[in-house]
């Protein structure tokens, strides 16, 4: 005989104490109070849990997702400007979601790329450099295919998957000492097109901070200076494929940070 069981569903609203949040940020910023920072992390952990749960059906343990989301939360805490008239949750949500999305993206790439394509991508990369030098212009796909004696489809496939791995680590361009770091924000004026995309500078600034100096520079050269990928590659001393990969990652990160509601 079936037993009747009453389940009670409670809808919990996510609510945070704005006044306390502000006080903690002031303590952390003004006095470098690490305990205040820890308290902020603790306080907003349920925001991380809520956002992580939106990704729970993608085959990753929820605990791992919460851990990844917490990294996003810490980044948001460290970057949040308490003087801005923006609520911390508004600021933190895209950063946390961005971190979670990046986790899935990186994981996916690491698994999918077959060795044959990795090798071909490496060769295509070298062929682009050689042909650009030889012809003094950007090569076409059939030219690269002929040079490598493969089909144009192979070249297109290699170009498509090239962003899955690093040929040369670009980590060194992160300018940890900040001596020659590039910040695109310095170049963006009030009436700029990119500025017009978002309502306030804080949102744009948060999105741009997700990018490395190298990525910011690629974005600036492509969309503000109107340079082609090959020109950017020459300017920065990297390959066209690296520029292509950086540009796509850059645009994706920007989109993810500017459109926080696109959680799923």
């Amino acid at each position, binding site marked *: 005989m079936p037993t009747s069981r009453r389940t009670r569903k409670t809808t919990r609203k996510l609510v945070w104490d704005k006044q306390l949040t502000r006080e903690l940020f002031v303590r952390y910023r003004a006095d470098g109070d690490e305990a205040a920072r820890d308290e902020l992390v603790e306080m907003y952990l349920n925001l991380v849990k809520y956002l992580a749960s939106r990704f729970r059906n993608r085959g990753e343990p929820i605990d791992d997702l919460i851990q990844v989301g917490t990294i996003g939360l810490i980044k948001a805490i460290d970057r949040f400007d308490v003087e801005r008239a923006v609520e911390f949750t508004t600021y933190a949500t895209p950063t946390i979601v961005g971190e979670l999305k990046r986790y899935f993206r990186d994981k996916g790439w690491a698994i999918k790329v077959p060795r044959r394509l990795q090798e071909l991508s490496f060769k295509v990369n070298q062929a682009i450099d050689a042909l650009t030098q030889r012809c003094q212009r950007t090569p076409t*796909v059939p030219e690269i295919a002929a040079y490598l004696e493969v089909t*144009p489809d192979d070249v*297109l496939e290699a170009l*498509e998957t090239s962003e899955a791995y690093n040929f040369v680590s670009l980590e060194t361009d992160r300018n940890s000492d900040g001596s020659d770091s590039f910040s695109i924000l310095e170049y963006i004026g009030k009436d700029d097109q990119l500025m017009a*995309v978002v309502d306030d500078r804080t949102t744009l600034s948060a999105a741009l901070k997700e990018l490395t100096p190298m990525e910011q520079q690629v974005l600036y050269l492509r*969309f503000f200076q109107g340079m082609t990928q090959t020109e950017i590659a020459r300017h920065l001393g990297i390959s066209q494929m690296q520029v292509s990969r950086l*540009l796509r990652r850059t*645009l994706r990160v*920007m*989109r993810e940070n500017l459109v926080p509601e696109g959680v799923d």
Partner: protein
Amino acid sequence: MTENERVVLTVPARGEYARVVRLCAAELASRAGMNIDDVDDVKLAVEEAFVFAAEHMTDGEMTFTFHAEPEGLDLLVGPLPEECAHDTGGDAGERYARFILEAVCDEFEVFTHDSACFLRLVKKTV
């Protein structure tokens, strides 16, 4: 694909199909004689067009029609819901998509026809 020929691709309006359209676009751009910089621009444009269209569609299908033009590649995206055409200042995602599309295409327009919205992108072969 030669002049006056067209390639029509209809895919479910879900993000995972953006890659299918991007690969098709890359192949057609290459056939149109574009160099790899321009092929990459076409790929970026198609991805942004996909996002632009997907902003207004929760389900259904999206149709991409590629035309070979003497000077390059012409892409028509649609029919989409009519509200796509109203540039109300939109949300950040839509404005961002417009910003990228205007930057990477030689021509970009949003227009209505028979109560539907269409996106038209043109990338010229240098």
